[in-house]
């Protein structure tokens, strides 16, 4: 297959160059000159015309298959429409052509049934090979569970080096802000930058187990040739073995509600040594950051902590001013927030509300939940002076 691929690729490159210059000139007049934008290595390139440069075997095979299909289809296209346009030019009334009924021998009909059938079979064979390879998730070196949540990704390293690491990966808050700004200049990694990328070692087989907390999401990284739906209540898996180090980007690829466009995927592929170092560092960091739910906090500290939790999780819907927007309810002045009976608010955060329009937040830890609720109770015009301690949240969990 590789041999065949070479000439194919040569042709492809020429085609691509031609198409590229055509598109570039066509695009010039509407170009987004206002924003100087560059290719994002590992992410999309400006006016990219084909798949991302492959970083895994599978992605490379997909590339090959795509060109293979493109070329067969192009050939059929040229033949079929060559005939049609020849006929349109020659067999028109205005050039004096007289209609001639054709005989309809059975072999013609059979022929153009059987030949396409053979072509299709010829297409199916290489596809089958790639497909089978793609599905083989056995013998992985590292297994990571990717959990889709409205609207962020949780990564749990569950097997192999790094086991036990857990992180939550959210779109950089400033990018979400930028999105609301209709005209502002935007960086090259616009909407692709996250706070905590997933880190994996190069050259190792990584198995990704996908699942979701609320609705269906899809975990995709084009450069790896990977896309797998994350389905609530079920696990699915896929795999990749990155052959290059670097940063690779993807986005959630299944409609998952309002912020569907804002839950990117960022995979950092590093060398084995760097990976080990990262694992060490992460483990230490996690040990240090573990929140003790029995700790008793002061109001000021908790509000401060809550502010950052709010910024990371809530601001996308409820807005910085706490007023919500559209169907999103305000927090500022909300009865359930002001209510002296804290259990109501705790239950809303743990279980969600309105059929999940307000999602459940039980994946946050007790301290984070306590902090964000205390923040909400004491921010904007809400001045309740009420304080929810982590232990109260812990008690309210089932």
């Amino acid at each position: 297959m590789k041999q065949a691929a070479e000439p194919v690729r040569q042709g492809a490159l020429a085609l691509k160059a031609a198409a590229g210059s055509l598109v570039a000139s066509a695009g010039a007049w509407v170009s987004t000159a206002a924003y100087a934008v560059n290719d994002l290595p590992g992410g999309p390139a400006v006016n990219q015309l084909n798949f991302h440069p492959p970083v895994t075997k599978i992605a490379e095979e997909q590339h090959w298959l795509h060109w293979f299909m493109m070329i067969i289809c192009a050939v059929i296209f040229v033949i079929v429409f060559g005939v049609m346009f020849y006929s349109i030019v020659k067999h028109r009334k205005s050039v004096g052509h007289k209609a001639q009924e054709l005989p309809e021998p059975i072999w013609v009909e059979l022929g153009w049934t059987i030949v396409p059938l053979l072509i299709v079979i010829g297409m199916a064979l290489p596809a089958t090979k790639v497909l089978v390879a793609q599905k083989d998730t056995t013998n992985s070196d590292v297994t990571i569970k990717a959990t889709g949540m409205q609207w962020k990704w949780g990564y749990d390293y569950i097997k192999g080096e790094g086991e036990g690491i857990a992180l939550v990966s959210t779109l950089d808050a400033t990018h979400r802000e930028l999105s609301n700004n209709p005209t502002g200049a935007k960086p090259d990694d616009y909407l692709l930058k996250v706070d905590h990328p997933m880190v994996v070692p190069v050259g190792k087989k990584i198995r990704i187990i996908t699942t979701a907390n609320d609705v269906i999401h899809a975990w995709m990284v084009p450069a790896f040739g990977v896309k797998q739906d994350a389905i609530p209540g079920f696990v699915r898996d896929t795999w990749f073995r990155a052959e290059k180090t670097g940063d690779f980007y993807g986005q959630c690829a299944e409609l998952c509600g309002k912020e569907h466009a804002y839950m990117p995927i960022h995979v950092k592929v590093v060398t084995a040594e760097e990976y080990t170092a990262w694992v060490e560092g992460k483990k230490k960091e996690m040990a240090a950051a573990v929140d003790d739910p029995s700790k008793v906090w002061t109001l000021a500290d908790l509000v401060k902590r809550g502010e950052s939790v709010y910024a990371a999780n809530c601001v996308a819907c409820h807005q910085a001013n706490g007023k919500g927007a559209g169907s999103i309810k305000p927090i500022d002045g909300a009865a359930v927030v002001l209510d002296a009976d804290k259990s109501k608010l705790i239950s809303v955060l743990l279980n969600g509300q309105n059929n999940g329009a307000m999602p459940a937040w039980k994946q946050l830890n007790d301290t984070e939940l306590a902090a964000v609720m205390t923040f909400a109770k004491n921010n904007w015009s809400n001045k309740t002076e009420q304080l929810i301690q982590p232990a109260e949240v812990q008690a309210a969990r089932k």
Partner: protein
Amino acid sequence: MSAVLDHHDAHGHDHHDDHHAPKGWRRWVFATNHKDIGTLYLLFAFAMLMIGGVLALLIRAELFQPGLQLVNPQLFNQLTTMHGLIMVFGAIMPAFVGFANWMIPLQIGASDMAFARMNNFSFWLMIPAGLMLVASFFMPGGAPAAGWTLYAPLTLQMGPSMDAGIFAMHILGASSIMGSINIIVTILNMRAPGMTLMKMPMFCWTWLITAYLLIAVMPVLAGAITMTLTDRHFGTSFFNPAGGGDPVMYQHIFWFFGHPEVYIMILPAFGIISQIVPAFSRKKLFGYASMVYATGSIAILSFVVWAHHMFTTGMPVTGQLFFMYSTMLIAVPTGVKIFNWIATMWKGSMTFETPMLWAVGFIFVFTVGGFTGLILSMAPIDIQMQDTYYVVAHFHYVLVAGSLFALFAGVYYWGPKWTGVMYSEFRGKFHFWGSLITFNITFFPMHFLGLAGMPRRYADYPMQFADFNAIASVGAFGFGLMQVYFFLFVVVPMMRGQGEKASQKPWEAAEGLEWEVPSPAPFHTFENPPKLDATATKVIG
């Protein structure tokens, strides 16, 4: 050469007493006449095309540049969802039913549809459903925003408008089922004596098969959304894993409906093209029998390919292989159709009036969409393309350049029969070329966006995608303007009867019983069936 020996019925006939068209609004609201009901369907569909089109333009306007300029992401999802639903269920399907109403009785020499009152019921059911769909934007929480595919469990998070939408779809489904039964019965039972099934015009054949698809899959959709409804409100767990259900089950049931549904939207289009190409090539349709078999094969295959929409849900490799192979097979019968059309043109004596232009444009551009479909059907590459703009490009090539172009072709072809006046050839051609060019400007760049990984249903996107999105948006507005032009300068004049008077058979070589009645077709036609010349084979299109 005429196929009809006995013309007594088509022109003056015996009992004139009760054959005057009713007047005023009653004529339309209480209609039992297939032509009037056909007109109602066509007008309804056109209105929905406008509404769906405006939603599409709002989408394109938002996507013109990165960043949110016009709408918030929630509203964006509502726009996408309602655009899909309105176009599919409000515009394309009813438009084809309108054609069926107008043309099937005329083409088979029947006096009307088999069940005239039920026919009107099918139409009037669409009004409440259409109203509910459009009104859902104004309900608390806005319109449904879960995509036209209404995947669970996202539908469980929607507001009350979701229920309105579900009930509206139930009603639309009932309307489709009644309409299809009507069409099946009309075709099977009311053909003029001597018109065997294999002499029937292709348009009737494609609709017969489409009607079977409809009665087979609309009830399945009804089942799926009923389960959604009970999951939402009555505590069932069909799609809820916590109670033992499965969200993916929704997708299987939906696509068992959804894939045949897309052929429901293309088979009648094939029928229209199969009428037009012979007429303007001045030949009979090449390979009539194989056209019928190909249509049948497409329909049958369409029941076993549904999971090609679900390659990324993670099914076993055997499942992926099965659905990949069966999907690729559909290229074969579809190819037969393309080849037959080209063979019909071959050695013809072609002229290129507007209907023929649209038909050739259809064949050309639809094939592009067919090829991208084939590329999508390859599971290993679909993994890359699933839920990206490549899919959006694919289905607009087959739905807009396919279904919609064929509808335009049909309007130009049969419009003179409906209205009694010719359209302006210049305007028709302008509409065609303008639409063809702007269509490609709109949707061709989406292939690149998809390959580069831009997901669909996104309100905002990375900077690198900006240029192609801008081009697509400009194209979309151009395409929209062309349709405004079509409405103002083609449709309105024809409806007002302005223009050259159309002869009974404006197309030199058109075949079929519809050309045996005057233009515009009188209120009642073929009250007694025409006598067909048993030796005439040219009745068929």
